[in-house]
């Protein structure tokens, strides 16, 4: 097997005295879709934010594509990466947020072209052509010039996905991408995500959409209280949970 895309070994994260992650071990292979399930406060979102170094981990090792996140190892000492280096690595990891976080002062097209032009130095016209292509792909061919406030939640989230894809990421992180959406708008976003999975994108998805997990995930991880309670194929974890906590959680959401 080649190097896993994401590898976590005993990852701990504290906020002040509150320990949110208490030793996470997991691996995501390239091209794999992993769904993180669990009650709120279980540390799923925090773990996701650690993967692109929006949060610093306190102990353990976390690497993406064979390279440590946020640090460089020289001998047996870790050196913090410079801001520009951290930024360069983040540019290779796409992230989609629960509340979309589209840039409110830019049109849909502006949102999608912004980072490629600014961070990757791609020519404006080239970036715009690619952005149009991506917006068409997520089903928003007629909304290029709309501002986020003029779009529905589902449309905003699809722009956000296009924005992340415009950086040609090797890994996509989804932080409860459908939790803030009206039920009738969830389907469109999930369709786009299924398409990505089919195209072989490596994805880590924090979600409460059990149907999506069952259908798309290669591996499902159930977290609670800052630890991985159990993991396995969706059939195993969702249909035959071995742990009491998993069973209790699933009985509430299914």
């Amino acid at each position, binding site marked *: 097997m080649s190097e896993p895309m994401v590898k976590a070994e005993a990852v701990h994260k504290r906020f002040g005295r509150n320990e949110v992650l208490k030793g996470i071990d997991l691996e995501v292979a390239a091209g794999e879709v992993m769904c993180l399930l669990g009650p709120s406060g279980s540390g799923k979102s925090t773990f996701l934010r650690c993967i692109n170094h*929006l949060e610093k981990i306190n102990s353990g090792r976390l690497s993406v594509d064979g390279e440590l996140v946020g640090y460089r190892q020289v001998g047996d000492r870790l050196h913090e990466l410079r801001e520009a280096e951290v930024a360069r690595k983040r540019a290779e990891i796409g992230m989609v947020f629960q509340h979309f976080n589209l840039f409110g*002062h830019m049109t849909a097209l502006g949102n999608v072209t912004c*980072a490629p032009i600014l*961070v990757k130095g791609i020519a404006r016209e080239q970036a715009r052509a690619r952005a149009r292509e991506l917006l068409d792909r997520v089903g928003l061919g007629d909304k290029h010039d709309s501002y986020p406030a*003029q779009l529905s939640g589902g449309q905003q989230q699809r722009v956000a996905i296009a924005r*992340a894809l415009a950086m040609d990421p090797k890994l996509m992180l989804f932080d409860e991408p459908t939790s803030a959406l009206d039920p009738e708008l969830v389907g469109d976003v999930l369709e786009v995500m299924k398409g990505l999975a089919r195209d072989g994108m490596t994805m880590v998805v924090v979600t409460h959409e059990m149907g999506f997990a069952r259908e798309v995930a290669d591996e499902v991880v159930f977290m609670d209280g800052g630890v991985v309670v159990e993991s396995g194929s969706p059939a195993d974890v969702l249909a035959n949970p071995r742990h009491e906590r998993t069973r209790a959680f699933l009985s509430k959401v299914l």
Partner: protein
Amino acid sequence: MSSVKDTAERGRPEEIRAVPVRHVGRWVAGAIVLVVAVALVNSAVTNSRFQWSVVGNYLFDHRILEGLKVTLELTVVAMAIGIALGVLLAVMRLSPNKLVSGASWLYIWFFRGTPVLVQIFFWYFIAALYPMIDLGIPFGPALVHINANTAITPFTAGILALGLNEGAYMSEIVRAGIISVDEGQADAARSLGMTRLQTMRRIVLPQAMRVIIPPTGNETISMLKTSSLVSAIAVAELLYVVQAIYAVNFKTIPLLIVASIWYLACTSVLYVGQYYLERHYGRGSSREQGATLPGMVLRGVLSFRRPGESARPGGGEHR
């Protein structure tokens, strides 16, 4: 279902034409306002001591216009210094480095805590404190020697005092704007690989402008008037010129009216500028552009466009 069909069959019911409620209070209040207004105008016209003819003679006097020019220069330069300094101080204040944020806090504390007039005098008399100003490596060799007596003219002292003081106020305004932008915006920017500086410049500050512009407009209007304080150190701005003229001909009231008319005219122009700035930076923040009532009225007056006509095509077609 049946009720829907009924309505459709019967067509549109006739328009309601009810007898409106009589607002007696409104009429009374309106009458009082009208009487007071007429009385005021009447007294202004009939009281010969206003000397409107003198006002007319001096309104476009070349000395007055020179003074007005200096006032505008003071306002523009001091505000430019204030805004640049304000952004710098606000970003410093939000820095994770305690020494940097502390320095910003100390600056704001000092310049907000002392009267502008005192600061104006301080800069005017700076030569008494530092006769020679050396610019160079701290505690090392100086590269430039400046004779404070000749370099700090009244105008420079005025600019420095007004600009540095304004910086303290502007920084609080800018900081409020930066804080008002949702943290998710910075998260998204950084997740796309932008650095802190890029995130601030391209994502956070442009959105903070919506919150920053209205109070900055107030500050500019306030600065236009505060600049009259530098008449105390003999800068030949509008108020100083007016004082110089009435010191000779004793036409105190008409000349003060001349100054007031020019201050009012300038602030009115600033009002209009502020409206357009707000509209520019408000783009994308609401579902319809320029939907505020004062905005519609102002735009209607200024460009004779039909009210309700959207500035941006396609503004109303979204879901």
